[in-house]
């Protein structure tokens, strides 16, 4: 009797586990499908894209759309790609360097008005970024920076949230280490560079990843300050593709794949760090 009861319980557990997996697998299919479908449409011959029944598995795969994306006169996708890489990299390096340097200053150094300035930073965290769009645009215009990368880089290098975040991490670095270094005659900058930064690596890496992803994916600001076709970044380039070639779906999808593949590969490589980074910082990469 008892044995029978146990068996039934085991069966019940097994059923629950099966259900659990079934739900997760179904969800995986639903979540993964749009990305799969983007790739499929991009390698479907133009004539078949609008034909029903739709082909869930491409029977005549073709790479003509990828060739076309690279050869059309008004689609400078290789150039946009380089632009995105260059701009995002510069923004990330500047932003992480400045945020960490400043965070160290606020966490460890004494200077008059420090707490007041920090309070001002905190205050601006509450104000949504949209408020500064118009004034910064007018300022950039006044500086003659419209349609140059200065317009993207300098405003993009300021991250109040980054300072705030890193300050918290730096404050947890043991003071004794710094004292020891001071005794050995290290300067403040050297302590920051050789002790505090390496010890806060997890936070620095997380910030680096999310600033990069944010810069790479930004749409609004490049849309507003860039005008020339050859200066655009990938997301703005994609809107051109979507706007001009609505009728050529496979071509649009090929462009979308080219724009998305790098971030997806980047994510696949660093997924553990990225997910840990979200847990650590509460940032999301947008």
């Amino acid at each position: 009797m008892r044995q029978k009861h146990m068996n039934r319980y085991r069966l019940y557990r097994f059923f629950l586990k099966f259900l659990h997996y079934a739900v997760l697998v179904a969800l995986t299919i639903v979540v993964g499908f749009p990305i799969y479908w983007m790739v499929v449409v991009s390698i479907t011959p133009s004539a078949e894209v609008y034909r029903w029944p739709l082909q869930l598995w491409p029977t005549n795969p073709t790479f003509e759309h990828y060739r076309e994306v690279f050869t059309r006169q008004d689609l400078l996708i290789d150039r946009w790609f380089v632009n995105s890489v260059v701009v995002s990299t510069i923004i990330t390096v500047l932003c992480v360097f400045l945020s960490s340097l400043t965070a160290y200053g606020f966490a460890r150094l004494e200077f008059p008005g420090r707490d007041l300035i920090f309070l001002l930073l905190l205050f601006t965290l509450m104000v949504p970024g949209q408020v500064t769009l118009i004034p910064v645009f007018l300022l950039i215009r006044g500086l003659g920076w419209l349609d140059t990368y200065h317009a993207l880089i300098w405003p993009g290098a300021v991250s109040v949230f980054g300072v705030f975040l890193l300050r918290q991490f730096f404050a947890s670095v043991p003071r004794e280490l710094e004292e020891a270094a001071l005794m050995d005659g290290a300067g403040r900058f050297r302590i920051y560079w050789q002790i505090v930064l390496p010890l806060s690596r997890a936070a620095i890496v997380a910030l680096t990843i999310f600033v990069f992803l944010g810069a790479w994916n930004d749409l609004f600001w490049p849309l507003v300050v860039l005008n020339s076709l050859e200066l655009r970044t990938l997301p703005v380039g994609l809107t051109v593709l979507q706007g001009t070639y609505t009728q050529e779906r496979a071509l649009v999808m090929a462009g979308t794949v080219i724009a998305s593949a790098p971030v997806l590969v980047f994510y696949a490589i660093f997924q553990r760090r990225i997910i840990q980074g979200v847990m650590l910082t509460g940032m999301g990469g947008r």
Partner: protein
Amino acid sequence: MSTELLTTQGHTSRQYPRTWRTPVYTLTNYLFILPFLILFVTFVAGPIFYSFWISLHDWKILAKEQRFVGLANYISLMQDDIWWIALRNSLYFAILTSIINTVFALIVALLVNAPLRGRDFFRFVFYAPVVLSVAAMGIIMSWMMNTQFGIINYFLVWLGLPPVRWLADPNLVIPSLSLATVWWGFGFPMVIYLAGLQGIPDHLYEAARIDGANSWQVTRHITIPLMMPSIFFVFVTQLIAHFQVFGQPYIMTGGGGPGRSSYTVIIYLYQTAWRYFAMGYGAAIAVALAFVILLFTLIQFRVFGRRRVIEY
């Protein structure tokens, strides 16, 4: 903010605390924050005040002198039907998306938090769409939701259901954008929840097990109550983020269509400032938007104090 001065106990020949306190050192300390501060004042703090100043003018981008109009822009805004439509749409989208994301991401987080073979793989897949740009996501989803050629309708018809005019129906367009956004973004709150779930001590679960509670009871009476701070944090931050929606309608519905049924505040701001170059009115829209968001933020601050980073 308990940063005291470094104190050494005087057992070395060099007197650090003394040099430390000299004004020269204090001033060089400014060098650490100076580069950031210059950019911060130029691109963040200054513009916040400048924005308000611009909104008090009839600001034309090409004019030599800007005409001061006082609060006229705000008064027009309050009587502007388009503003109210845009505000309504943004709120509708934000509330709908945030509720779905908050609940759905929690369910998924509970599913992938259980000790299960391959759960890292599931987490990997569920977070993946988050790294896509809104442009890529919008292009993919608008094609899938296409009424005539979209694959979602293809499946519906295949199942014997009537096709749905996802982005073409004025009543469905915002829920559709919401759905697309949930696909794109639920991985982010999911990971926030996972961080929260890790912080629940094991002995609570063990105690419940010993008392004979089943999984559902454990979830209902231990996990959910302990997760309430995370749930609330996710909801409010999602609300703030999605209220500022721009990319989805810009890409997926041609900037707010059909008609104005998905026209949002940021789209209105974009068109006012960069299509009609009415910078004064645009600035007024931005400031009004900031006030709405400030309301959300205050709710968040009331509950969380000054913390922006979640700690468990």
